[in-house]
Each structure stands twice: as structure tokens, then as C-alpha cells.
């Protein structure tokens, strides 16, 4: 009996060690977060491709607010000019920059859509209404893709920081990955004030 134990215990220990160190989990989650990130980029690209169409259809409207339009164009140029490489994921600074640029484009686009409400002719235009639906769908997809990225990164980071897998992370140099946040955290955590009084 003891001899069997002597024979199999080291093997069992080795197996437990190999599965317990989480090396494979790191590989799996790293790959999962990369593909989730690709999906985020994919959807952002879809939005960037949509912007010229929206701008073109809005330009058809005479005397459309020029300022709003140029802001969208500039934000898109800025967002697409940022080079995104796989290293962006491991570089919090580049990640923040990218996120900020996309956030600006989000803001400019939603402002454009609000302004467009004031132009009845634009609202009656079927092509513009279709673009509006497409943009809305794209924004939804971006939200879902970001959510999934957030979840995989969370899993990865928990693995990278909890014992004993953090030892593996240290040994191989796996740092926690950056995650999405919002630019205006203070602003959105305050309840909005609604004021109907005319000034």
C-alpha cells in the first residue's frame, strides 16, 4: 500500500501542480481577451465607416449647423488616426488615448443626432432614417463588445492577482490588463437636474 503511494504520489503532485499553476488558464484568457478586443475594434471600425455616409446625408440639408458637422468629422479623423496594435492592450496610456478619441466621436455623433431632430426634412428622409437605425445598432454592438471585453479582462486580472496563480503571472510577467472606464465619472454619478423653467 505504502509502495503504491510512493509510486503514484509524485505523479499526482506533478499533475496537480501543472493544472493548479494556471498557466493554461492564462493562455486561454489572454487569447479570449484579445479576440474580445478585436471585436471591440471591429465595431468601432464599423462606426467609423458609417460616419461619412451620415455626414454626406446631413450635408444635403441646406444650412445644417456647420459646427456640429465639423466636430463629427474632426472626431472621426482623430479616432481613426490612432494606430491600434496588440501592444495597445498592454499599454494603459495608449489604451486611454484610444478610448478617449472614441469617446469624443460618440459625443459628437450623439450631438449630431440631437441637432438633426430640428430639421423636419431630414427626419422625413428615408436614407437618413436608415442611417440612424444603423448607427443605433452599431452603438449597441459596441456596448456589447465592450461588455464582453470587460468580462474577459476581469477574469484575467483576477487570475493574475490571486494566489497561487499570481506566482505564475510573476514568473512569466503577465500584468493585469487595462479595462474600460468612463471619462466623466463624476458627472454621470450625479443625478441629473431637470429644469423646465424658461430662463
Amino acid at each position, binding site marked *: 500500500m505504502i509502495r503504491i503511494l510512493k509510486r503514484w504520489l509524485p505523479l499526482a503532485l506533478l499533475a496537480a501542480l501543472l493544472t493548479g499553476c494556471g498557466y493554461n488558464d492564462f493562455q486561454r484568457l489572454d487569447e479570449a481577451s484579445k479576440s474580445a478586443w478585436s471585436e471591440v475594434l471591429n465595431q468601432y471600425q464599423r462606426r467609423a465607416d458609417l460616419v461619412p455616409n451620415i455626414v454626406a446625408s446631413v450635408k444635403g440639408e441646406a444650412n445644417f449647423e456647420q459646427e456640429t458637422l465639423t466636430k463629427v468629422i474632426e472626431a472621426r479623423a482623430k479616432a481613426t488616426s490612432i494606430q491600434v496594435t496588440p501592444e495597445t492592450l498592454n499599454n494603459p496610456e495608449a489604451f486611454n488615448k484610444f478610448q478617449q478619441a472614441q469617446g469624443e466621436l460618440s459625443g459628437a455623433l450623439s450631438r449630431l443626432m440631437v441637432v438633426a431632430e430640428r430639421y423636419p426634412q431630414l427626419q422625413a428622409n428615408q436614407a437618413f432614417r436608415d442611417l440612424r437605425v444603423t448607427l443605433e*445598432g452599431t452603438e*449597441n454592438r459596441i456596448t456589447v463588445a465592450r461588455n464582453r471585453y470587460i468580462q474577459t479582462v476581469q477574469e484575467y486580472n483576477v487570475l493574475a492577482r490571486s494566489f497561487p496563480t499570481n506566482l505564475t503571472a510573476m514568473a512569466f510577467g503577465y500584468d493585469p490588463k487595462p479595462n474600460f472606464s468612463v471619462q466623466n465619472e463624476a458627472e454621470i454619478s450625479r443625478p441629473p437636474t431637470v429644469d423646465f423653467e424658461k430662463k
Partner: protein
Amino acid sequence: MAFQRMWRALGALFLIAAASAAFMAAAWAQQAVPALAGRVIDQTATLSAGDRQALDAKLAAFEQRKGTQIVVLMVPTTAPEDIAAYANRVANTWKIGRRDVGDGVLVIVAKDDRRMRIEVAKTLEGAVPDLAAARIIDQQMKPAFRNGDFAGGLMAAADQLIARIDGEALPEVASASYEQRSLMDVDWEHLILFLFFGVLIGGPILRKLMGAILGPLAAGGLGGLLAFAFTSSLVVSGIAGLLALGYTLLAKPASFSGGGGGSGHGYGSGGWSSGSSSSSSGDWGDWGGGGGFSSGGGGDFGGGGASGDW
């Protein structure tokens, strides 16, 4: 004394946990995802029993014919979430759509919010693009809902969705032979690993127990029998049996004593039974073709579809 202290500490911990749970519930008072009780779930008691049955029958017939799962959900409100976020959460929890295909559609109506949404799984984003979903909402649902005709609007929307998905080339509805084929696909890798280790451990033990001739024969027979039970293929099981026989014949007898052999055998049989139970309880969806309805578990919803209001 020490016990008392421990109990007190435990009680305090429990209180903290309960308080934080209550706080979380207050902070994140999201609507719960309802149980997937059928193809038509009406929490607002708007549809009459007859309407519900008619709609259910239409969707069930379509699922039988094409395989696609369409579910209609009516809730009072989705607050505090947007209907798009809520619909995505519900759809991804239910995962409606066949397991290997992922073709599901969720039609959701928030009656008090006066908003509706058609949430489309990724597989069907080609058949029902966002624009098509928006048209269905604008042309079928919106006018009917404005007149208070929810059943009519949902029926018309279901007809439109069915017509669109019918035009898409989706895999055929699963038949018995299809299931058997995928059973083999699933089990291949596990089976090889399992037999490999089974023979590696069980072979020497059998040889020790039953002798140099009878042991290998038993190992070969057992290996072949098990392989046949899993794959139901004579060729595969024959090869597995021969391999087991060859290995056990050539392998050195196990180097532990007779007493050890007995307990070793116990270990071996434990290995067999756990192996077979793990492969028989493979990830099979409870995907009944008959009476009851359950999600295929394959739908992946990436935010496709459209929302509208009335």
C-alpha cells in the same frame, strides 16, 4: 468561550454579508430575467389565452420546420435599463437558438414604457439586419400597438420574421442520425485519452491478477467492448482491443505485491466508472423535439436588431 467568540464573529460576518447584499440589490435594481417558460411569455396579461396559443403554435410550427427559435416576451417595464440592454441580457441568458447554429430571435415588448425591440442573434443578422427589424417594428408592430392590438401586431411581426428567416440557408433541423454523428465527434478525443490511460493503468493490474496470458486477453476484450459501447463502430473497437491486448502482453508486470493488486484493482474500476459517467453526461442540451419548449442554448446575441416605440 472560544466557541462563543467564533459564533459571534460568524454572526457579525453574516450580518455584514446580508447588509451588503441588500445594498447591492438596492443599487442594482435591475429587472430579473424571467424563466423561459414557453415561446410566448406575457407578464402583463395583455394577450388572451387564444391569442397566446395561436402565436405559440405559429412559432412552434416554424421551429419544427426550420429549427429557428423565436420567443416573444412582454414585460411591464425594463427600467432602470434601456430596452436594448435588457433585451440583450435576457437573450444572452436564455441563449435561444439551436446549439450548433445559434439561430434565435427575441421579440420583446415593454408595455408601460411603450417600447419594443427585436433582438437578433449573430447567426441571423444577415437574414434580419437592423434595418429589416426596424421596418418590421415601424410597419407591423407600431400601427397595431397604437390601436391597442398587441396580438395582431405580434402576429404580423412573427410572420415577417418567419418570411425573412425562411429565405436564409440555415442547416436542416436535427434528425436522429445527425445526433449520433455529433455524439461520435464529441467523444473521440476523450475516448482515446481515456482508453490510453485505462490500458496504461488497468493492463498491468489485470495481468498481475489473471496471469500473463489471460490478463492481456481480458484487457483487450474489455478495451474493445468499451470502445464499442462508446463509438458503436466495429472497426474502431477492434483496433482499440488489439492495441490494449498488445500493450498488456508486452508490458512488464506491475511491480507491486498481491495485496496492492487488490486495492489497485479497486482504483482501476473507479477510473473506469468515472470515465464512462463523464463521457455519457456530455454537454447535451435538453433539446426536446416534442411537447415542451426549451432553449437550444446556442444563441449568441451581439446587440443586433432594432428598437422602437409607439
